[in-house]
C-alpha cells in the first residue's frame, strides 16, 4: 500500500517535470525575444534593455536558466510575470478561484444531469429524444451554446447577468454551457453501460427477487455503468480546462483562461509555465482519483 502510494507520487513528479520541461522548450523555440516581452509597450532604449537583461539574469546560458527555473519551482517559487511585473504565484492565485468555481459547477451539473438522463430516459421515445439532444450538444461548439444561452436567458428574459463574476447567478449560464457537452457524452456512456448491465444474468436474478425495474437500475445497473464513465474522468478534466478558456471569454469572466490567453499571446513565459505545471498537477490528481474510484466501484480489482 505504501509502496503503491510512493510509486504514484514518484510518477506524478515525473509527469510534472516532463510537462514543465516540454513547455519550457516550446516557449524557447517560439519566436520573439524575452526582453521585448518584458518591455511590452514601455519605453525602449539600449540602456533599459541592458538593465532588464541584468535584472532578470537573461545573460546566462539557457541550460543554467532552465536548471535555475526548476530549482526554484521545486521550492514553490514560480518567478515573476514579464507582463504584469508581479509574482506569478499572486497572478494565478487571484484567478484560480473563479476558474475552479466554474469548473466544479460545470462538472457537477454535467455529471448530475447525465446520471438523471441515463436513468430516466429508458423508454423507447424518451431514449430517442435524449440521444438526439446529446448528439447535438456534443457536436455543437461550446461558445455557440454560450451565445445562444446568453441571448435567450440574459438578453431576452434578463434572468442572469450578461458578464462578470458577481454572485451565484453569474455562474449559472457559464457552468451550464460548459456542462452540457459533458452531460451529452457521459449520458451516452452511462446509457450504454446500463443497457449492458441490465442484460446480464444478475439483473435477471435481481428481477426474480421482486425488485422494481427502477431498483434494478439504480442498485445494480448504475454501478456497473459507472466503470466506463470513470475512464472518461481524464477527458472530462481536459474538456473543463480547454472549455473554460473559451467560456471565460464569452461570458467576460475573470479566471485562468483569460490569464493564459494573455500570457501566451504576450510570451509571458513564467505565467505560461506555471499554468502548464498547474494543469499537469491537477491531471495527476484527477487520474489518481480515477484509479481510486475504480477500486471503490469494482471489488474485483482490489487485491486480496
Amino acid at each position: 500500500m505504501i509502496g503503491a502510494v510512493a510509486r504514484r507520487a514518484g510518477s506524478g513528479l515525473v509527469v510534472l517535470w516532463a510537462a514543465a520541461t516540454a513547455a519550457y522548450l516550446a516557449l524557447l523555440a517560439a519566436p520573439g525575444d524575452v526582453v521585448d516581452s518584458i518591455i511590452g509597450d514601455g519605453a525602449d532604449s539600449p540602456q533599459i534593455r541592458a538593465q532588464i537583461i541584468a535584472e532578470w539574469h537573461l545573460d546566462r546560458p539557457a541550460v543554467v536558466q532552465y536548471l535555475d527555473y526548476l530549482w526554484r519551482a521545486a521550492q514553490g517559487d514560480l518567478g515573476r510575470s514579464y507582463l504584469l511585473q508581479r509574482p506569478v504565484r499572486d497572478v494565478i492565485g487571484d484567478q484560480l478561484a473563479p476558474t475552479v468555481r466554474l469548473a466544479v459547477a460545470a462538472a457537477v451539473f454535467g455529471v448530475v444531469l447525465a446520471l438523471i438522463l441515463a436513468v430516466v430516459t429508458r423508454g423507447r421515445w424518451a431514449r430517442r429524444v435524449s440521444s438526439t439532444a446529446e448528439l447535438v450538444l456534443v457536436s455543437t461548439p461550446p461558445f455557440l451554446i454560450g451565445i445562444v444561452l446568453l441571448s435567450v436567458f440574459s438578453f431576452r428574459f434578463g434572468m442572469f447577468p450578461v458578464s462578470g463574476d458577481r454572485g451565484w447567478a453569474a455562474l449559472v449560464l457559464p457552468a451550464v454551457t460548459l456542462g452540457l457537452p459533458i452531460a451529452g457524452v457521459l449520458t451516452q456512456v452511462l446509457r450504454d453501460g446500463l443497457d449492458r448491465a441490465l442484460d446480464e444474468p444478475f439483473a435477471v436474478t435481481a428481477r426474480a427477487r421482486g425488485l422494481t425495474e427502477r431498483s434494478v437500475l439504480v442498485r445494480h445497473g448504475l454501478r456497473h455503468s459507472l466503470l466506463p464513465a470513470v475512464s472518461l474522468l481524464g477527458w472530462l478534466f481536459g474538456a473543463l480546462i480547454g472549455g473554460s478558456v473559451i467560456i471565460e471569454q464569452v461570458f467576460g469572466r475573470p479566471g485562468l483562461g483569460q490569464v493564459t490567453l494573455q500570457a501566451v499571446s504576450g510570451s509571458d513565459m513564467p505565467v505560461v509555465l506555471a499554468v502548464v505545471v498547474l494543469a499537469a498537477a491537477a491531471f495527476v490528481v484527477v487520474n489518481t482519483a480515477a484509479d481510486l474510484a475504480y477500486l471503490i466501484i469494482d471489488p474485483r480489482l482490489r487485491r486480496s
Partner: protein
Amino acid sequence: MIEVENLRVTFRLGKRQVEAVRGVSFDIEEGECLALVGESGSGKSVTARSLVGLAGPAARVEAGTFTVDGRDVRGFAARDWRRLRGRFAGLILQDALVSLDPLRTVGAEITEVLRTHGIGDRGDRPDRVRQLLTDVHVPEPGRRARQYPHQLSGGLRQRALIASAIAGGPRLLIADEPTTALDATVQAQILKLLAERRASGETLLLISHDLAVVSRLADRVLVMKDGRIVESGPTRTLLGGAGHAYTRELISAAGGRRRVTTTAPGEVVAEATALRKVYGDRTVVRDVGLTIRAGEIVGLVGESGSGKTTVAQLLFGLTEPTSGRVRFEGRDFSGVPERARRPIRRRLQLIAQDPLSAFDPRWTVRRIVGEALPRGADPQPILERVGLGADVLDRYPRQLSGGQRQRVAVARAIAPRPSLIICDEPVSALDVSVQAQVLDLLAQIRADDGTALLFISHDLGVIRDLADRVLVMHDGRVVEQGPVRAVFEHAGHEYTRALLSAVPTLEGAA
C-alpha cells in the same frame, strides 16, 4: 400450484417474429420435482421464466389457461408479478459468478430479498442472512456474507445464490441449469442441497439438459424440443424406455459410448519433463511429466484450479515453465525464443472451449479457415471433412450454431496438418447430442491422419469415451495416470475415486 395450458411465447426480433414456445401444457403439483429437459434453444428456459413473468421485454406470452398459485396471471401488471417473485417463487440460474451482482457482497444480495419483501427489520436482517447461509451449508456464514462472489469458490457461490433465492421463503424453486457450470464433486453437493430443499417441502422446477442430473432429482420429466413438449411422464418410466426418438437420442448421448480402439502409439511427438510453474507465491503446476506419441489421444482430467489449463499453456509455449522443459517434435520448445518456436508452430494446434471468442467476429468462415491453409488454397475440402457444407463459407461465427462453430475450429486446427492438437474443454459448452457428434469427428480425425490429441476436460465421461491414456491432475500434480480402462476400473488414488463417484450417472436407465 401451477396450471398452464397452450402456452405460447413469441419474441419480436426487429421485424421478425420468433416462436420460442409453441403451445405447451403442464401442471406443477405442490411438493413435487418436475424437470424440463431439452437442448439449448428448445424453449425450456423461456417456459420456466414465463412462470414468473420474466420472459423478457420483447416477449409476448399467451396461454389458454395460466394460473399460478390459484390466480390467473394473464393480464398481470408488473407489480402483481413482483409480488410473486422472490416470495412465491425463487429463481436459481446457472453460474453464480454472473448471476450474483459481482460488485456487491453476497450478504447485500441476500438482504435485498428481505428488504424488498419487508421481511424482518433492519436490525435482525444480518442474523437472518447468516441463518440462510447456514441453511445452505456455507461455513463461516458471517465472514462469507461480507465477501464478493469472485472471492468464493464455485460451489460456495452457487450456495449463496440458492440462499438468496430461498430468502423470501418461496414455495416454488425454479432452478435453471443449477449445476452446469460446476465440477463433478461440487455438482454432487449442490444436487444434494436441492434434494434437501425439496425434502423440506419446497416444490422444485428443474431445467436441465443433463439427464443424469434430472434422474437424481425429478419425479416427473417433460422433454422439450423446438418449443413443444415431445414427451412427458414419470422419470423412471421415461428414462427406462422412452417412446420418442428424441428422448432416446438424449439418453444414448448421456450414456456415452467408447469411440476409439487403442492403436500402437508411434514416435514421441511432445514431451514435458518435471514441469513446474509458479505465479507469485502460488505453485500451480508441480513436477508434471508427460509424453505424447503420434496418433495417441491423451486425456488430462481435473477440476477447475487443478492446473490442467496451465499445463496446456506450457506445452503450447504460451508461458515459460519456472523449471522443467518442453520438447516438441524432437526440438526444445521451452526456454527458447519465440523465433525458434515459430517454424514448428503450425505443427501444434489448439481447439478452445469457446470458439466464439477464439474467432475474429468480423471474419467469415472462409477467411478463418483460409488463414490456416496455404495461400489461395480452397477451404471447401477441409470443411467437408468436418461435415460442413459450402453454405457456411460466407457466414460469420455468430451466425453459426455452437456445433458448427466447433467444427470450424476443428477445420482450422487440422488445416496445417499438425502432429498434435491440444483440445481445451472442446465440448463443454455444447449440448449432449452435439457433443457426441464433435467427439465422433475428433476420433475420426485421429484415425485418418494419425494426429495426436491432448484432450483436456473436467468431464470424465468424455475422457472415458475418447482417450487412450488418462492423466488425473489435482493441486498441480499428476496423481494418477495409465490406460483409460485401468484408471476408470481400478482407480488407485483416492482423489480419482472421489472424482469417479461424483460423476452423475443415469439412474434407472435401460
